[in-house]
């Protein structure tokens, strides 16, 4: 057992923290989130130069062969700074799909472009019903001649408004769930940004007779479910890491505020009402963060982590929401304004709960494993 980060990992965290505090302070985040693009291409290029877009990919595809825990560290720092970028959609969601399910040529071509920052991608999965279930897909890919034709609507497609290519999940006849690569400038696409409080570049994407050639199927038809399950298990942990980072900053900012803000001639942080809120917040963070590292280590150690990823996300969903909400409460009136830094987190805690599945969705996955196995392995 060794529950410390390596010195390289400490350096990775430090450099990420320094980069964000210099290049992307909260005032900059507030500017970026009001733009149509919802991200800064200039900052994105700097992130590419730092090598983060290649962190989790093997060297043969231009990556740096980092560990999953390395990614978790970056994700925590992204969460702390509310860095708005296509990192999650492009590197984590689409990158992992290609890595898990793509052909050798697709990996070389697409992952190479992701690493060098020339390709932004979006995953078109969820539909109008708003189900989180991976297999809950109605969109059909009809085979006409040697081409598939896509029709229908995808919802909450993150970064579709800024992407070059989409990965579209659709049912290909008897083959079942399949993954299709579609150019964002296809004339059959209508992309509209959805106004969400998280300013997360969620989009509606309408497909009208969009044609996809067979070589633009990721891997082979019918591999969609397996590839998506693998990707989501990891992406779920990565999203949880962002939220754990958010918890930490909420506590830091609020702790500082409670030490400075005086009422009745004393700092409010000395009053037990505030102290007990903050004790609960710290407890929520310390349980969440240590659980995060344990589950992330399971990925690196090659253990079966699917149910633990779900358990972690459910835990962090509730804790980040709780922490961000108490943080605003302790700030009082000032915390409820658009300009307040703390409100950036409150507006994200709830949308992040739904990303990669909400609490009830993940609890059901945990229950399924518990009730199947009976005893809990230790």
């Amino acid at each position: 057992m060794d529950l410390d980060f390596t010195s390289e990992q400490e350096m990775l965290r430090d450099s990420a923290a320094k980069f964000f505090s210099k290049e992307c302070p909260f005032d900059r985040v507030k500017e970026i989130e009001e733009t149509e693009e919802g991200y800064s291409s200039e900052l994105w290029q700097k992130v590419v130069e730092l090598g983060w877009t290649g962190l989790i990919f093997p060297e043969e595809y231009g990556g740096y062969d980092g560990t999953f825990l390395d990614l978790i560290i970056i994700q925590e720092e992204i969460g702390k700074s509310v860095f708005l970028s296509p990192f999650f959609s492009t590197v984590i969601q689409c990158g992992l799909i290609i890595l898990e399910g793509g052909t050798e040529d697709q990996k070389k071509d697409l992952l190479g472009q992701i690493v060098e920052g020339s390709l932004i991608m979006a995953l078109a999965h969820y539909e109008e019903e708003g189900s989180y279930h991976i297999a809950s897909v109605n969109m059909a890919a009809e085979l006409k001649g040697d081409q598939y034709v896509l029709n229908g609507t995808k919802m909450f497609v993150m970064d579709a408004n800024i992407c070059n290519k989409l990965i579209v999940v659709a049912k290909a006849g008897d083959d079942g769930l399949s993954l299709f690569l579609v150019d964002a400038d296809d004339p059959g696409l209508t992309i509209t940004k959805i106004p969400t409080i998280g300013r997360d570049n969620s989009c509606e994407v309408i497909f009208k007779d969009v044609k996809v050639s067979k070589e633009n199927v990721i891997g082979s038809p019918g591999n969609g479910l397996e590839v998506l399950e693998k990707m989501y298990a990891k992406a779920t942990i990565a999203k949880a890491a962002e939220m754990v980072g958010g918890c930490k900053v909420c506590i830091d900012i609020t702790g500082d505020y409670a030490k400075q803000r005086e009422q009745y001639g004393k700092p409010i942080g000395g009053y037990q009402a505030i102290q007990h809120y903050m004790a609960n917040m710290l407890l929520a963070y310390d349980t969440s963060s240590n659980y995060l590292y344990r589950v992330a280590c399971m990925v690196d150690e090659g253990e079966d982590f699917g149910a633990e990823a779900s358990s972690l996300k459910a835990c962090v969903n509730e804790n980040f929401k709780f922490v961000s909400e108490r943080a605003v409460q302790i700030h009082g009136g000032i915390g409820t304004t658009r300009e307040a830094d703390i409100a950036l987190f409150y507006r994200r805690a709830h949308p992040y709960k739904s990303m990669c599945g909400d609490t009830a969705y993940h609890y059901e996955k945990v229950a399924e494993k518990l009730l199947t196995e009976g005893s809990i392995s230790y």
Partner: protein
Amino acid sequence: MDFKLTEEQLALKKEFDDFFREEMKNAPEVYQNEGPAEACYASDEGWEFHQYMKKKLAKKGWLTMAWPKEYGGREAPVIEQLIFNESHAYYRAPGIDGFGVGMFAPSLMLYANDEQKKRLLTPIARGEVQYCQGWSEPNAGSDLASLRTAAIKEGDHYIVNGQKTWTTGAHRADHMFLLARTDPSQKRSRGLSVFNIDMSLPGVEVRPIQYMNGAPIYNEVFFTDVKVPATELIGDENDGWKQTRDTMNFERSGAGSFAAIRRRLEELIEYVKTTKRDGKFLSEDPLVRQKLARLYTDMESGRALAYKIAWLQEKGNLIFSPAAASESKVFSSELGQRMADLAIDIMGPYGHVEHSKWSPLGGSMIDTYQSSIGYNICAGSNEIQRNIIAWVGVGLPRFK
């Protein structure tokens, strides 16, 4: 970073698990149906099994594995203590007098004279005695330093007068470590001293307090002109407060609490899989499934925190640990309460049935529902713990 146990640690874990699994087959039923304090202190058969296990653990060297080598321990690394504590708690085994082995003995090692060390440590290490803790008083609970029980020196004795309360297991104990005021002119934490009290001395009277589940666990202890030889004063006179605050590097992550909850959760899972209501197994009810999953999630996140605390303790990092140990205490005690509440909810009207032919899981959950709330209050109430977390963990100011 990795969470894997070494080969040696895995072997140790197996040794502990095998031992407790076997031994607990002979345990009286109370160890299945009741909380650990009830099982130990309430019934005679439970108490006798506790004595039996003490001797067994002492013989194996496990009772004092955390002790320094010069006192016969083996200074087991914190992680090994954690593995032991998890196994011990999971199998609901008794046999550890936490007051003697875990609290008073370390104090003796630091403050007692050589004669006292020789006389008092050996029986503790051999599992031959039972201690109780003489701290809380009717008007000194969370505010312990306001205690009033007095020990006034007269020649080569101290005369003790006053009252202690909530004294766990006092009705079974041979000795008490008593915190009393030796200098009544001094206030609060000054003027206090620690004594080793023989519970059979004239003037010591133990009156059991019946806990809400009916079990005699806690007691009131009255002292009326009790003549305590001056040789029983531990350390310097009026230096007692410091002794209550010093602890050794014994595992205090709370990992055992989560292991105990894991066992109860496994039993609850078995219950919902085998119990039908309205024509369906309870395990098919989406609400039941959600609740069980939440319990698991909370338990695992708490356990991850406990491991981190043990790791920091092992590395000698005492800056993080004080707040984190409070966090683990708050979280595990309240989780125990939530677990029992959830379990008896799931059991419907049967949830409230005490141990009998009608009670699911031997009535263990309704017993826990009552005993668990006590853990939110004892050993530093969760309110006091939250103050500590805020002061030490968040760095918030402490008003005087």
